[in-house]
């Protein structure tokens, strides 16, 4: 009970210490995500509906106008203007005041501002009306006439097995970038938090009241909690913006991808967070911290580069498949592979199993190294020496 209280107290202090950097970094990251998602929505069409001006002469049938609207939807719509004479209508067409003319039920006139899309829609709508009129003359019902206009044709598309949708690719890229940023940033926070306590010797006071591995646990948990909150906030914001726009096609699997990103973040963070804590405990000041923490960040960076190559390359290579099972890189690669639909269920299960075992092993190893390193105030401690002198967590 007392142990849990000290861990919670240490977590509270840690959360308080990182509150400001967390809020600033969250504001920046959320702003970037909001801007990026908005740009994505806009570039995907969004509300960029083209409005055409259509001139009507001699009262064309209402069905023609209705057909044109339907044919242009969702990329465009028409505003109509009635003209008393063809001469006035053609003058307006020449002056680009209208984009096309429909005269009666059997004539169309193009002008300098007529686009292909509008021309096709107008032509088809007038043709449809003629088919309806002819069908009616032949004694066909309106339903039979409609069947002539819209024959039942089954259509489908075959996609390349490697190429997913753009949204899948975007999701995969976001998951890789997010994972890299979160693990790197929050891992480094842990490393430097450990070094800071060691450098200013406050750890010597703390260790009189809290067991060293509990102190490490408090750090990893509290900073991890901040990372989790940030990731959930980013995921929620991105999905909200995406869903709020009817123009961005959000894959149905998006919510599950967000869940996968969170799961892999937790696993990757537990693995790397412990490693960073152990690394931080070996340095006695910030200068030394760079030389210990730097190589770990390179490891994370390798995963990031591999992940981005995978996503942009659009091919699930053997290298990526193999490395996505290795705990150092699985958190960066597996969510991307899942998002692209490349990872088989058994691959996900095996990678998760490997990652969980690796995470637990790392927590245990790092805990021992932390214990061996954190109390050595005088100079940089070697990994092996810290492991040798550190107490095993089970003792």
């Amino acid at each position, binding site marked *: 009970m*007392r142990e849990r209280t*000290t861990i919670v*107290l*240490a977590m509270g*202090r840690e959360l308080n*210490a990182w509150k400001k950097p967390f809020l600033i970094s969250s504001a920046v990251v959320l702003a970037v995500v909001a801007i990026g998602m908005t740009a994505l929505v806009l570039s995907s069409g969004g509300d960029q509906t083209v409005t055409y001006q259509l001139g009507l002469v001699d009262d064309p049938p209402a069905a023609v106008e209705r057909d044109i609207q339907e044919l242009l939807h969702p990329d465009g719509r028409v505003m109509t203007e009635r003209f008393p004479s063809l001469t006035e209508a053609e003058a307006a067409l020449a002056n680009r005041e209208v984009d096309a003319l429909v005269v009666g039920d059997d004539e169309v006139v193009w002008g300098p501002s007529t686009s292909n899309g509008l021309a096709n829609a107008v032509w088809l709508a007038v043709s449809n009306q003629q088919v309806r009129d002819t069908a009616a003359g032949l004694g066909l019902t309106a339903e039979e006439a409609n069947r002539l206009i819209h024959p039942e044709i089954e259509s489908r598309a075959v996609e390349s097995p490697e190429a997913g949708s753009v949204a899948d690719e975007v999701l995969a890229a976001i998951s890789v970038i997010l994972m890299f940023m979160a693990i790197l940033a929050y891992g480094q926070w842990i490393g430097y938090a450990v070094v800071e306590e060691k450098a*200013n*010797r*406050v*750890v*010597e*006071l*703390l*260790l*009189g*009241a*809290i*067991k060293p591995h509990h102190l490490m646990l408090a750090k990893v948990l509290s900073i991890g909690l901040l990372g989790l909150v940030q990731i959930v906030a980013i995921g929620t914001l991105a999905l909200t913006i995406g869903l709020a726009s009817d123009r961005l096609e959000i894959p149905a699997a998006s919510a599950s991808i967000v869940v996968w990103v969170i799961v892999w973040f937790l696993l990757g963070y537990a693995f790397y967070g412990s490693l960073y804590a152990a690394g931080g405990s070996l340095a006695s000041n910030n200068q030394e911290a760079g030389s210990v923490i730097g190589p770990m960040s390179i490891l994370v960076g390798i995963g990031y580069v591999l992940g981005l190559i995978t996503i942009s390359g659009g091919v699930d290579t053997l290298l990526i498949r193999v490395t996505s099972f290795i705990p150092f890189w699985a958190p960066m690669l597996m969510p991307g592979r899942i998002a692209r639909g490349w990872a088989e269920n058994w691959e996900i299960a095996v990678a998760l199993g490997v990652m969980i075992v690796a995470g637990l092993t790392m927590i245990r190893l790092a805990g021992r190294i932390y214990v061996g390193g954190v*109390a050595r*105030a005088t100079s940089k401690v070697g990994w092996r020496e810290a492991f040798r*002198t550190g*107490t095993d967590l089970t003792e």
Partner: protein
Amino acid sequence: MTLAIIRGMCHHEPVLRLDGLSKRFGDVIALADCSLSVAPGQMLGFLGPNGAGKTTAMRTIFGLVRPDRGRVTWEDSELTTSVRRRIGYMPEERGLYPKMRVRKQLVYFGRLHGLDLPSAEQAVDRWLEVFDLTDRANAKVVELSHGNQQRVQLAASLVHDPMLLVLDEPFAGLDPIAVVTMARILREQAERGIAVLFSSHQLDLVEDLCDDVAIINAGQVILSGRVAQLRSASPKRYLEIATSGPVDPSWIDQLPGASLVESRDDRIRLLVDEDANLEMMASAATQAGEISSFTLEPPRLSEVFTSAVGR
């Protein structure tokens, strides 16, 4: 219970024991069969030259150094974290969060050491008042002067009402007024029955403050006991002669069994042999000037220390 009873009773029953501690860092022997003990109400001065092993020995109490041999016990049992929470520690290099506010920091340490929030806040406010830091309660530690940081550090070791205080060089860097304040607080703690172990290079201060000392050299406690007994156990005797006016110490050269240790304007200090003829010396001194005091005394603690460590 009177102070004398507390002290008398406690000195017979040490609570903290360092038994035969040995520690080696590579080729460096930090501790070599180091043993000492502290009892409730006892103020033990832990003395030694730089690198003698004082800090290493103190760090073993908190598990910061794991001895290669020997053990640290509290009431004959292994030290556990729950016992360590009842110990106040002031490390050699001060350990505080520089950017954390004073009151918040002290409350945090109090709570970590087992106090609930109201008790911690109450204790912190009391200690802030004792150390005259109430108006700096909301300042960040880094904004305080060195002396005030030192006071906060001592407050951090006292806030949870410890059973034992372990203070590594608590007087280092303090101005004379702060030294007096800190000495008074330590004395009060010992009088309350708290065991106090502290290291210091200010031997005159230790002599004034402590009844007991332990002197460590090369990782081993080479001398320990009551200050008065250690002084009187020394075969050396010092003769201090004060005169009413300036004295020329050249007459000492002809004096058998005496050698000059220190000479100031109106005061000389001589190291004399056990069988020295004091009457002859007094007579010689009288001829040199009018004597205002003539004192034969055992060595000071600083002289016992120098002699013990062979320097």
